[in-house]
């Protein structure tokens, strides 16, 4: 299952945003087909993201995806929120659990503060059972119009 990835700009008018608003989640079912594509553009061919056995040798139950790709998913979540004319000012993400192969990863965000056109957001990604894979915060700037 995948969310619509088009930057539909649902919240680009700062006046319509309130603390507590949820960003439209960004959802990806993750497997080698996602990771191989990302490895191909970022030259990130890590064995533990390429086959299960390599991940097991590192103490994990199966292959797991790149933190950098979750980082991209979080940015995709933010881009859909701010629209093409908004700006991502700062992102701070910590990875807490591996994104194991065949998990569905959902990136979420909640508005925690608004200061002029700058919006603070709590971020996280989670897997199918709700366990958080990454947590963080972001600051974004929205168009004032």
């Amino acid at each position, binding site marked *: 299952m995948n969310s619509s990835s088009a*930057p539909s700009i649902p919240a680009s008018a700062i006046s319509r945003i309130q603390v507590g608003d949820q960003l439209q989640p960004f959802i990806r079912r993750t497997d080698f087909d996602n990771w191989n594509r990302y490895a191909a553009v970022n030259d990130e061919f890590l064995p533990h993201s390429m086959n299960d056995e390599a991940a097991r040798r590192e103490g994990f139950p199966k292959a797991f995806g*790149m933190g950098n790709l979750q980082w991209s998913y979080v940015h*995709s979540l933010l881009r859909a929120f701010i629209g093409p004319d908004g700006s991502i000012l700062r992102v701070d993400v910590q990875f807490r659990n591996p994104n194991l192969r065949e998990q569905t990863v959902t990136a979420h965000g909640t508005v925690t503060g608004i200061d002029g056109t700058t919006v603070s957001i709590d971020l996280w990604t989670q897997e199918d059972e709700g366990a958080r894979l990454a947590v963080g915060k972001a600051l974004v700037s929205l168009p004032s119009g």
Partner: protein
Amino acid sequence: MADSNISEAMKAAVGTETSRSTSYPISESDIRKWAMAVYWPDKAPAVFTDPAAAAKTVHGRLVAPEEFNPFAWAAAKNELLLTGGLPSRMVNDPDSSERALGIEGPGLKFMLNGGMICEYGVRMGVGDVITGTNSVGEYSEREGRLGLMLFSRGVSTWVNQNGELVRRTTNTLIRY
């Protein structure tokens, strides 16, 4: 098990600039392929694939997703800012950052991406040439489910051909 994997030489290296790289000019194709991989299996947003759509944004041109890496695969120039570095022993060497400094690393076997903090400046776009300077950040460690885990930070500062800050990233590498 070692009491600590952080040597005096590693502590002394914090703040040292280790390398500088200059990218090739960013191309439309670089941006398009990055966006296609990240958004797959959905279509990438037109602002990353269609110059006409991108021209209607405040940027007025095709710009890259913020997290785009212009140094993937190859750079136009790579400079080691230190002499006396040691060669890495393998691909994906967990000790590669210490060996570049000319000191022995802790010899841990595995490494994971622990997280990132990124402050963004101006966007990267078609034709831009990015210069990135890498330096050694703080070390720390704590017990985790996989044993004593070493957290090492690397700081990377990118500017464009006009000297404008593109982004400053602090990466945390976990080794165990």
